[in-house]
């Protein structure tokens, strides 16, 4: 009975894993094939990768789009983590009634759908001429209640004696945050990095609206353009999709252990 149950478990997990991984495998295989073979259903790797790379880079400014995406996402991620972690720490360590109340108000922002703020944000940024700049990409999603809450939760588990001891040593509050809190909260920072970077990189609706110049195009925008043409080269298209998925995929594989731990922290709260 027990053995049967375990066998069924393995079977279900194998099917689920296969279904999850197959489209990704197919994408990678397709990026090494020519368009005809992709459509014919070829599932093995081929030698057309270099030809696809040449074609893709000739058709589109992939280098610039990739560099843009990296630049915007890294800045957004770094600033977001800095601003939200210090806020989360502040909300917890210096908490009083007014600050707790403010925190619950900020949490309401989680319910605001992006479509609702899209129009005023668009008008706001174009009115001051910030369209197509990194500031426009970064500012709307820089501070999120989710991240603040995550760091507030982790500050809660941070022993106050350490803070008090550091104060007696004469360290000022900012130094305590940077030198004592940040280094001990590595796994929370790793989880936050994973989520924030993925959201920043994958962001599509807002960049589609505000990054109007060709120079400011991002990877998701480029890939979307590739797929909307009339005669689509599927090998080239899948290569574009693959390049667009690489950074988030690699980041996740590196940080996945921390990600799971960080989520545990968030769920506990």
């Amino acid at each position, binding site marked *: 009975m027990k053995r049967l*149950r*375990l066998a069924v*478990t393995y079977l*279900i*997990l194998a099917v*689920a*894993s296969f279904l*999850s*991984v197959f*489209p990704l495998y*197919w994408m990678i295989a397709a990026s090494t094939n020519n368009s005809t073979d*992709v*459509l*014919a*259903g070829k599932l093995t790797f081929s030698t057309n990768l270099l030809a696809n790379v040449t074609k893709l880079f000739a058709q589109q400014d992939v280098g610039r789009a990739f560099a843009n995406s990296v630049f915007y996402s890294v800045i957004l991620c770094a600033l977001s983590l800095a601003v939200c972690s*210090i*806020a989360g720490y*502040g909300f917890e*360590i*210096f908490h009083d009634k007014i*600050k707790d109340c*403010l925190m619950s108000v900020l949490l309401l922002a989680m*319910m*605001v*759908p*992006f*479509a*609702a*703020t899209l*129009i*005023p944000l668009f008008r706001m940024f174009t009115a001051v001429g910030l369209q197509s700049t990194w500031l426009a990409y970064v*500012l*709307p999603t*820089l*501070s999120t*209640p989710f991240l*603040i809450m995550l760091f507030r939760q982790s500050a809660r588990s941070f022993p106050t004696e350490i803070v008090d001891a550091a104060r007696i040593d004469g360290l000022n509050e900012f130094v305590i945050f940077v030198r004592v809190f940040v280094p001990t909260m590595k796994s929370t920072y790793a989880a936050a990095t994973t989520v924030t970077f993925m959201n920043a*990189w*994958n962001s*599509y*609706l807002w960049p*589609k*609206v505000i990054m109007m110049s060709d120079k400011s195009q991002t990877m*998701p*925008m480029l*890939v*979307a353009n590739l*797929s909307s043409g009339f005669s689509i080269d599927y090998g080239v298209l899948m290569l574009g*999709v693959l390049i667009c*998925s690489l950074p*988030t*995929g690699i980041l*996740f*594989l590196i940080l*996945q252990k921390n990600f799971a731990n960080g*989520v*545990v922290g*968030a*769920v*506990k709260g």
Partner: protein
Amino acid sequence: MAKPTASLHKKQSMIGWAFLMPATLLIVAMNFIPMLQALILSFQSGIGNNLNWSGISNYIRLAGDSTFRTALINNFVYLIIQVPIMLILAIILAVLLNSKDLKLKGLWRTAIFLPCCTALVSYSIIFKTLFAYDGYINTILLNLGLLHERVNWLGNTSTAKIILILALIWRWTGYNMVFFLAGLQNIDESLYEAAKIDGAGPVKRFFTITMPLLRPTLLLTTIMSINGTLQLFDESVNLTAGGPANSTLTMSHYIYKAMFEYNPQFGYAAAMSYVIFILVAVLSFIQMKVGDKR
């Protein structure tokens, strides 16, 4: 002695404010103020930035807009069909992954979570290509003899919806599973031992121990999923372009169209966005109430 501590407290409180101010101001400027502006905008009409007060005319127009109704219904179809299937799958997978004598846990978990690494645009395009008329799925089904002729999956109103739902389930099940796994790991193993001694079978243990203790996680994932489903955009744009005949068009996609594809009608688009906001708020509120009570 009272005075210095009081001033120390005050000083610390001020430092606290300095710490949380940048994040707070940004949320106010990027969420709350735009929310208010959208509300004001929804009572104005005109083309582009040429706006006049028009009372509730946008909302009246909305009530008679059949495309908006279609988009609203589409969103709810996704919500009602996709969210439960996805969450049930996520719970089942999490419970299986949590079994004690399972080997290769990390491998299974990574494989099932992997779809979440793809950009929303990317996976939309992968599914679009897989299910294209001359795409892989048709080819393989023909070769296996399961189909007699190619099916126009994305060109048919009902199958296009199904493909979009399948794509969503593929992309998000692993993501939700990670939350359930985290929730399961917080449950004390001794509870199960005690239940076993009392003679409770695995099914009974699942419904009397696992499910009640997973309720906070379930609440969190449900709210996130409802929120996400009501805001669907990338998939509608890139997988099906809203078609055929608006059968997969979502509310966010329609708002985008009203803003940028037709004559820019900011007021009308703002009124639509408020409908989404109210729906999200009401549904989250109901969820929290229901989640609290039980």
